């Protein structure tokens, strides 16, 4: 009984951590630019696929990972530079369409440059499951959890203790005021895309041993990451991770205890309920309406 529950919980935490990692990327970009980046899933794909193919070309894994993350960061920079900055008049929905275009383009490129097959990446520390009260957990899940905590800590430090990070925080709260204070918003937007592309690519490397990686892997992962970011309250990195865990655990518990056939329906109903009762997400800043 306990082992069953624990197994569902482990599954939910693993999947939730993956969603949270991806949701984090949404939050970082949203904070800086109020853009929902629908190409976030493609950063995840680039991280995984680039690592696979760099390794196939003979590079050692650590080097391949670093190059893949750097490559994704470059794509993120290009997207901000070409896609977002030059289209300032496009409005929020218009910018979303640009990121959708980017997502289609990147998937198309991946299919041509790499291939249409799915590939695994080797886990960081082996495949032998860890047994906890009769439930099992792959070491990779622990690595993902650890990475999540490390990234959280790093982001906390970045946002609270570096000039650029503080500037990003300020810009998120009031872009106009930040600009008046001499903060270069465009640089921050670029930086947020680079940061979130790198985070996405890192997530792609970490999750590939569990999810496999392929040209279209970003579609559903991106969607779930978006759900995580929304449930957590947009623009709140901590919230995105909590949101990811909520969605992941909801999915796992539904599949485990209710019905696996209707798992996704139940998960989305839960998401809808969270939104209805907490219209700004779990940790969203309440929108203040001053008349």
């Amino acid at each position: 009984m306990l082992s069953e529950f624990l197994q569902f919980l482990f599954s939910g935490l693993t999947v939730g951590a993956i969603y949270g990692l991806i949701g984090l990327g949404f939050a970082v970009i949203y904070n800086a630019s109020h853009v929902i980046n629908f190409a976030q899933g493609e950063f995840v794909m680039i991280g995984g696929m680039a690592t696979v193919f760099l390794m196939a070309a003979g590079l050692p894994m650590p080097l391949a990972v670093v190059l893949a993350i750097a490559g994704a960061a470059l794509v993120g920079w290009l997207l901000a530079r070409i896609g977002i900055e030059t289209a300032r008049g496009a409005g929020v929905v218009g910018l979303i369409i640009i990121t959708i275009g980017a997502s289609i383009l990147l998937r198309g490129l991946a299919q041509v440059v790499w291939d249409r097959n799915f590939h695994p990446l080797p886990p960081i520390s082996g495949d032998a499951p860890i047994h906890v009260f009769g439930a099992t957990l792959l070491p990779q899940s622990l690595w993902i959890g650890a990475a999540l905590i490390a990234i959280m800590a790093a982001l906390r430090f970045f946002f609270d203790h570096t000039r650029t990070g503080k500037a990003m925080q300020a810009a998120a709260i009031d872009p106009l005021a930040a600009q008046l204070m001499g903060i270069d918003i465009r640089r921050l937007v670029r930086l947020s895309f680079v940061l979130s592309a790198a985070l996405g690519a890192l997530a792609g490397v970490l999750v590939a041993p569990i999810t496999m990686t392929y040209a279209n892997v970003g579609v559903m992962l991106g969607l779930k990451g978006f759900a995580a970011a929304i449930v957590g309250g947009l623009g709140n990195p901590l919230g995105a991770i909590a949101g990811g865990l909520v969605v992941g655990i909801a999915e796992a518990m539904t599949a485990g205890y209710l019905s696996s056939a209707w798992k996704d329906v139940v998960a989305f109903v839960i998401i809808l309920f969270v939104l209805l009762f907490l219209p700004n997400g779990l940790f969203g800043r309440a929108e203040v309406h001053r008349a």
Partner: protein
Amino acid sequence: MALLRSWLRKAAAAAVAGVAALALVQTAPVRADDAKEPIRIGSFLAVTGPASFLGDPELKTLQLYIARINKEGGVLGRPLKLIHYDAQHLAKKAVTFTRRLLEQDKVDLIIGGSTTGTTMAVIKLVERAQTPFISLAGASVIIDPVKKWVFKTPHTDRLAVRKIYTDMKKRGLTKIGLLSGPGGFDKSCAGNARKLAGKYGITIVADEMHGKGDTDMTPQLTRIKNTPGVQAFLYCGFGAPTSIVARNYKQLGMTIPHYQSHGSASMKFIKGAQGGAEGVRLPVAALLVADQLPDDNPQKKVALAYKQAYESAYDDAVSTFGGHAYDALMIAVDAIRRAGTTDKAKVRDAIERTKNYIGADGIYNMSPTDHLGLDEKSFVMVEVRDGTWKLLK
């Protein structure tokens, strides 16, 4: 002024509409009536999207062999021309592209429909256009009941389930847990598994599903594992989830016999599972284990030749799906040769009279009542051992 502005606005709209209309006209084909006019083979496949594991090798196979046939002088002294569109797994695209193939490209015959949905969506069209159509999709509804102009080459998914159940019965496994994915392939396989279970004295004691893009199936597998009396496990699905299921299976330390469907018949499954695939049994077209067939098996030579040609051309392990396309093309070419013309009705009749045709998927004997005509022998059970397929006797 406002009026002028509005007219300009409308004019801009018209310009765009006009460009669009022009573009439509531009795509009209220019056809020369030449004796050497190519035989036009139309095709729509799921080359991208979630079913690309089907369409990708299918298209590669068609391209490879059409180039070969043309190098050898073509058919009836005429070259073959492949006109292909990527319809993904989408019925709407399949319908539009089929209209395009039929009415604009004026193809002589259509090979395609990687998935059952895209195939079923265009049957009405090809029947009305009276054009031979060879589908590469699995479901038996495509040819049962028989439709005059519709044929198919892959074994039906019902046969795949029958093979699995026969194997289970042989091992005395009667209570099974079923897990299936969200795709059409998965649903059709699982549906057959439910329908046929009774006939084989098998009861499905756990029936679980997973969703699109799911990355962890341990909750479903835990439920199956903890179902009292479960003796075997069957997964119906394709693509990345096949490997994920196998990995989760190993993670949970499950030991009951593990079966998957022919959707897993790809080396990617074994590689992706990273050891988790060991011991998994599945039905595959004999093509995949051609080298293990006895030498007197007539299929061996054809299958080996195809495997060798494909793998050397594309640096990619052969899959059974490419084999379906190979057979469809060869049956079509054979029929055109026998008919001595590309007259659609005569080609159709010739396809229907295909007898003892040895293909990659097996030996075809079509008839007015059987538009598949495959024997069951060419569909075999294999087990994954040491990272490769091992033919089960």
